[in-house]
């Protein structure tokens, strides 16, 4: 069974078509990348799959649940990391993770929090208030928050945004490990190297439509280019 099944998804903001009839599916345990220029409809798609936005047409099924009718069931299985997400500034890193963990299985809360702390890897700073964190520390805390609950589907919008090279690489490894342990990952990124390294399959989205889809290697061969960045430029320009 596909973890995610998107068919002819349409999302409008008034008269503007943000997403115009896109279709794709993601297999369980797969890392799927959504790539596109700014304003292409990536964030809207991720928000629809995260149950944040309603849809104007088509259908979206996540792990067998319809996003229109069963959003509450979907929220128990997914984890969404928005690109510009923040945390409650008056809480410490640990208290923030605890707050999020409390929404899940009560018996598992200490385990979930511990996992979040390990992923965030903030050392003693985990007990400092969030408003004292640097951008990179904040992002690590949020990645920890997103992955600590062992979601069936992790939706990550620019997961390494704001991180330095070393931290970004650690997060990429973590995403890879998370997928290997059975979590399906849908991510969007502007970093083509990241996409090439992480994703089993990618979809290139432009002006609300999917213009290309496939395995990174297959796409590079199809366009006779050396990397995904060139595939991206070619498809978007065409």
């Amino acid at each position, binding site marked *: 069974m596909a973890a995610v099944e998107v068919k002819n998804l349409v999302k409008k*903001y008034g008269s503007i078509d943000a997403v115009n009839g896109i279709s794709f599916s993601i297999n369980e345990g797969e890392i799927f990348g959504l790539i596109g220029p700014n304003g292409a409809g990536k964030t809207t798609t991720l928000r629809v799959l995260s149950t944040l936005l309603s849809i104007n047409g088509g259908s979206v099924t996540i792990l067998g649940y319809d996003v229109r009718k069963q959003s509450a069931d979907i*929220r128990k299985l997914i984890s969404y990391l928005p690109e510009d997400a923040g945390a409650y500034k008056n809480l410490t890193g640990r208290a923030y993770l605890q707050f999020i963990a409390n929404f899940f299985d009560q018996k598992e809360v200490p385990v979930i929090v511990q996992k979040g702390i390990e992923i965030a890897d903030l050392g003693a700073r985990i007990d400092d208030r969030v408003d004292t964190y640097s951008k990179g520390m904040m992002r690590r805390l949020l990645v920890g928050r997103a992955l600590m609950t062992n979601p069936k589907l992790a939706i990550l919008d620019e997961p390494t945004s704001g991180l330095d090279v070393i931290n970004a690489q650690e997060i990429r490894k973590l995403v890879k490990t998370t997928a290997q342990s059975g979590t399906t990952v849908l991510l969007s990124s502007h970093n083509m190297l990241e996409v090439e390294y992480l994703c089993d399959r990618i979809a290139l989205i432009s002006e609300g439509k999917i213009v290309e889809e496939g395995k990174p290697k297959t796409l590079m061969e199809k366009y006779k280019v050396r990397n995904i960045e060139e595939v991206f430029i070619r498809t978007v320009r065409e």
Partner: protein
Amino acid sequence: MSGLGNITKKEIRELLTPATFVPIILVALIFATLGNSLQGIQEQAATPPIIGVINEDNSTFGTMTSTILHERAKVVYNSTSSSDKQVGLETLKEKNGVALIIIPQNFTERIRHEQPGNIEVYWIMKGAGLMDTLPPSIFESLIAYINTNISKELIQENTTVNASFVLSPTKRVETTKFKDQEFIGLSPSILSGMLSSQTMLIPIVMMMIIIMAGSIVITSMALEKENKTLETLLTLPVKRTSIVTGKIVAAAVIGLLLAIIYMIGMQFYFSGFQFSAGVNLASYGLVITSTDFIWIGASLFIALIAGLSLCMLMGTFAKNYKSAQTLTFPITMLAMIPMFITMFADFDTLPLALKIFTFAIPFSHPMMAPRALLFHDYTLVIGGIVYVAIFAIVTISIVVWVFKTDRLLVGTTKFKWLKGLTRRRRF
């Protein structure tokens, strides 16, 4: 364009948003409505008082007093026998009168013997607000005028008359009828003052809670958006109703805590002059019982929940901390307006438009409850609680609906004027 012009133009463009103007326009409309309604009360106060006169004394001073009353007031009932008192009071009640004046048989005789002549005044008090005591105040100046004329006459007749007596040749014997109760020896202004000192605490506390707790709710929503935590919260396995209720309950708890601290201070402040007129309302049967306190508590709690739901709804429009501060303003005004209305006027004596307006504001009800309960007016209190509960349920339902739609995140709305308040869109 110069640097100054460029910056000014940019700043004006940023400030010229519906978020800046809509709350102020709403407040202006509220004030305009309030002003029009209060003008009606003022016009009423400027007209001569409507009274009834029973003159049993057809001698010099009795006739003089009666003549002055007929000249300077609108006399709608006239009689020469105090046995007609009840008829007079009924007539005045029908004709919206303020007082029945009885000049007793021995009025002139007492004055001639250098004893103050009694003027019996039966006040018909309609409301306990400051504005309601305006007609009695006007009448009091009339009594002063009568005194002056009697004094003049006494001096002209006899230059050796007792000076201290001649300065106040009459004495008022007052009884006030208010809400079917008789208050012997009390004038409307004293009664109104006593009632105000007994019931003023709740309106002030209510206003403070709403302002403080309301600000907490609106700011909380604004900070969720500004700190980018809202999207995460909305994707967690928690019901939208729980998010809305949780925020309201938390703000209510903090608001009540703040109110308790505030009330302790205010209680000490008010206890300083609660019995300043030397009259204890309990001796007239005007006591707030423990059951009444439960009603006041219920009214206060429901109004707080309704107010916070309204704040929550306003909070969904807040884009950031700055816009939250602007949105707090109309809520503050909505809390202050009933406080002033209940202070200056009585709900029963308000013009119909203002009555509807006051009743519609959920915060009015706990402010009006103590006075209503003193006079056992349970209909107003229970009716208010029911109305505010419905108001709260409807408002919470709207907030939950907003939380379930895209509007919270992308600001999509059918109402164009609201777009500026809510716009926040990213593809």
